């Protein structure tokens, strides 16, 4: 049963990942990326990481992919006549590099024989409980630093994508002077 689930989810994720990197229209890429995320969330549940699976669904498939969709619709990329992708020797070098890395990675993945076959028993506590216990005791400082990172990213995104029209800045300065 587990094997059937694994192969189904793996096939779904792999096929939609191939479509993500190969399809031409950005909207289709995003939609297949969402399917990849859902397949990976299923694999996470299979690995007894239920909390991470839910975060994957809510944050990745929900928030991040919607952000992508927003930008694609905002920039009207679907109507934009994009140049065809480059099919030159440089691009084929990219494919070669990816295949070479895969050939290199598979023996590395096959090395872990001592722990590979039999996973330890699933702990009695729920996955969320275990995760929260570690996150709010041992890893409390990284957790807080992560919030600073998110704040910095938010400010950076607002500044980068904010509208910079020439008449905008002096107007704000004038308003401040009247106070």
């Amino acid at each position, binding site marked *: 049963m587990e*094997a059937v689930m*694994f192969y189904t989810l*793996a096939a779904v*994720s*792999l096929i939609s*990942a191939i479509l*993500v*990197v190969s399809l031409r229209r950005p909207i289709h*890429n995003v939609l297949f*990326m969402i399917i*990849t*995320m859902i397949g*990976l969330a299923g*694999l*996470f549940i299979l*690995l*007894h*990481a239920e*909390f*991470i699976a839910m975060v994957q669904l809510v*944050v*990745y498939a929900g*928030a991040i992919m919607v*952000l*992508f969709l927003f*930008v*694609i619709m905002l*920039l009207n*990329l679907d109507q*934009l006549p*994009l140049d065809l992708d*480059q099919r030159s020797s440089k*691009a084929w*070098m*990219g*494919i070669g590099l*990816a295949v070479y*890395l895969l050939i290199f*990675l*598979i023996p590395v*993945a*096959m090395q*872990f024989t001592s*722990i*590979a*076959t039999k*996973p*330890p028993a699933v702990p009695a506590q729920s*996955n969320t409980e275990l995760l929260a216990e*570690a*996150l709010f005791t041992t890893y409390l400082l990284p957790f807080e630093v*992560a919030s600073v*990172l*998110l704040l910095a*990213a938010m400010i*950076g*995104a*607002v500044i*980068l*994508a904010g509208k910079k029209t020439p008449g905008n800045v002096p107007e704000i300065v004038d308003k401040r002077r009247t106070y």
Partner: protein
Amino acid sequence: MVTLHHYLILSAALFCLGIFGVMFRKNLIIILMSLELMLNAVNLTFIAFSRYLGSIEGQIFVLFIMVVAAAEVAVGLAIAVAVFRDRGSINVNDINLMKW
């Protein structure tokens, strides 16, 4: 019987697909999406090791990777919007000012 090797090979394949996307595609948004694919492949590796080693640390790492990925996507897409406003294109071949 699903072993750790299955998960590792799947995640290696996903990672290489992400690299292929970064190298092959010219659309900035698709390149960002391929980066997400690579991060997800790494997440799968972490979760698989977390399960087969019986340790929760792998899942903590995945949580932090997700935080970094969210920050990266927000800034990356903001840069894409800014580049599109400036150049009217998000083809990476048009963004070559700093290319050597």
